[in-house]
């Protein structure tokens, strides 16, 4: 217990350095399915506009584990995809390490909600895809083994994704992301398709992994308990058009019991703020 507290303390010392700057991001989608035919107005003929993000600004420090929490459909995933460079925002900019983001970057790996493995490659080949530039075959092999071991998938190297369970697929994708040794990892509800127990296991593994490699992780979730369990910092978004509603720092050591002390207070507050008037 004491040791992990020291680790958290060390992590806090690093917080001086900015990693990701989200500068005044706004995003609007155009709903093309309901285009009114007889509108003469040019603007409206393009389709109804839906504001998703409304001037969101954030500062994320190096090595931080940040959970972005919000109600369903509020634009959490959109925000994450904008930060990752998959979507261009309507206005505002993302700055990582002092440079503006113009597209996906090879040292910031995105872990998708579901189906992110290439189904035509084995687990081994999938993990090796991220480090395909390594010249030394032996080094490559050892590295893939190392990360497969970390996510407990030894023995499944030659399996294809369709032969694996949902949890194993997700773990393989995390291994693929980790093998790149990314500077930042983006995770878009990576555990939401999994059963309850697997989800708890993977949360635990993720926390341990973060303590071990200490890279920045941005984690989107709609699960309040999950966020409290994992995050160094919680960012809560409002309903659409989303703004930052709360920005909590959680300084509790891992493993956490979310039913005691300060965490319980935070949890109760979060449930209340999201419109649920009792906590289970």
């Amino acid at each position: 217990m004491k040791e992990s507290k020291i680790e958290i303390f060390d992590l806090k010392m690093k917080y001086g350095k900015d990693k990701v700057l989200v500068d005044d991001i706004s995003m609007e989608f155009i709903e093309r399915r309901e285009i009114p035919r007889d509108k003469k107005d040019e603007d409206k003929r393009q389709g109804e506009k839906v504001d998703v993000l409304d001037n969101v600004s954030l500062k994320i420090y190096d090595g931080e584990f940040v959970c972005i929490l919000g109600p369903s459909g509020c634009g959490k995933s959109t925000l994450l995809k904008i930060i990752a460079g998959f979507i261009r925002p309507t206005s505002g900019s993302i700055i990582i390490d002092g440079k503006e983001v113009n597209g996906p970057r090879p040292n910031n790996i995105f872990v998708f909600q579901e189906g992110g493995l290439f189904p035509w490659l084995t687990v081994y080949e999938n993990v090796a895809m991220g480090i395909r530039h390594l010249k030394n075959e032996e080094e490559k092999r050892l590295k893939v083994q190392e990360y497969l071991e970390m996510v407990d998938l030894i023995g499944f190297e030659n399996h294809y994704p369709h032969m694996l369970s949902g949890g194993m697929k997700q773990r393989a994708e995390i291994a693929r992301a980790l093998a790149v040794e990314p500077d930042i990892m983006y995770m878009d509800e990576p555990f939401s398709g999994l059963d309850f127990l697997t989800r708890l296991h993977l949360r635990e593994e993720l926390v341990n992994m973060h303590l071990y490699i200490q890279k920045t992780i941005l984690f989107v979730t709609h699960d309040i308990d999950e966020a409290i369990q994992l995050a160094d910092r919680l960012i809560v978004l409002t309903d659409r058009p989303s703004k930052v509603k709360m920005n909590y720092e959680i300084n509790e050591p891992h493993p956490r019991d979310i039913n005691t002390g300060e965490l319980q207070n935070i949890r109760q507050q979060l449930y209340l703020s999201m419109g649920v008037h009792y906590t289970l």
Partner: protein
Amino acid sequence: MLGNSRFCKFFSFSQTGFADDRVRTQRKKHKDFSRNLPILVFLGILVMWHLVSLAKIYDPNTLPPPSRVIKAFSELLANGILVRYSVASLFRVTIGFYLAVLLGILIGILLGTWQKVCLMFYSLIQFLRPISPLAWIPFALLWFGIGDSSAIFLIFLSSFFPMLFSTVVAVKNIPQLYFQIGANFDFTRLETFKFIVLPAILPDIVTAMRISLGVAWLVVVAAEMIAVKSGLGYLIIDSRNALRMDYVIVAMVTIGLIGLVIDKAISQLQRPAFVRWKFERK
């Protein structure tokens, strides 16, 4: 199956799996029997055909009895015509089909990748696609004359459009997610093609090949009836002119058998794991 046997074991624990074994042997017997069913159907038809011809209720020249067909079969085998004509037909199908597969996939990938080019040519393709390759016979004869090349041209037409169309659709249906992953891992254009586009469309291409080869084999018979002086199609039209209906049946049976064999052969392409992933259901 596994779940089922576990279920049996759980409820018959006092008999230590006895019920389980019985179920398994019954299932095995059933499987062996059903494997023989297709052959039984063929034999049944043969016997009925023989009985009907014995009854002598029609002129044996309109439908020769099986015995005469078997005799004709051995005649045609002995004088080498059957083998020579089968090879001729297979040769035309192979060349026309390969050309169609090659061009269909290449152009299909181009059209599938470039939205603008696709829009330009889409209507043209949809316009040409429903025209039966047989409608091209007059032009084929005019342009290539009587011989292999006009038959090959017709077979090419029959396979090209299904191949092209399937490839375009397959490329367009690749989930955007894979390209995002590719971008994330900093794939070059060549790598995107090699690691995403090609493997993603491969299962659909194999399926399309299976369908087009079937169509090609259908068309070769029709093409040979008109455009050439050899092949199984020519054997049919030539025997009809001589009123040798037994030869016609021999040709038909051979066409069916070869069709069966090439479909079986090409279905083997669906077996490797890097193709099969698409056909697996969770």
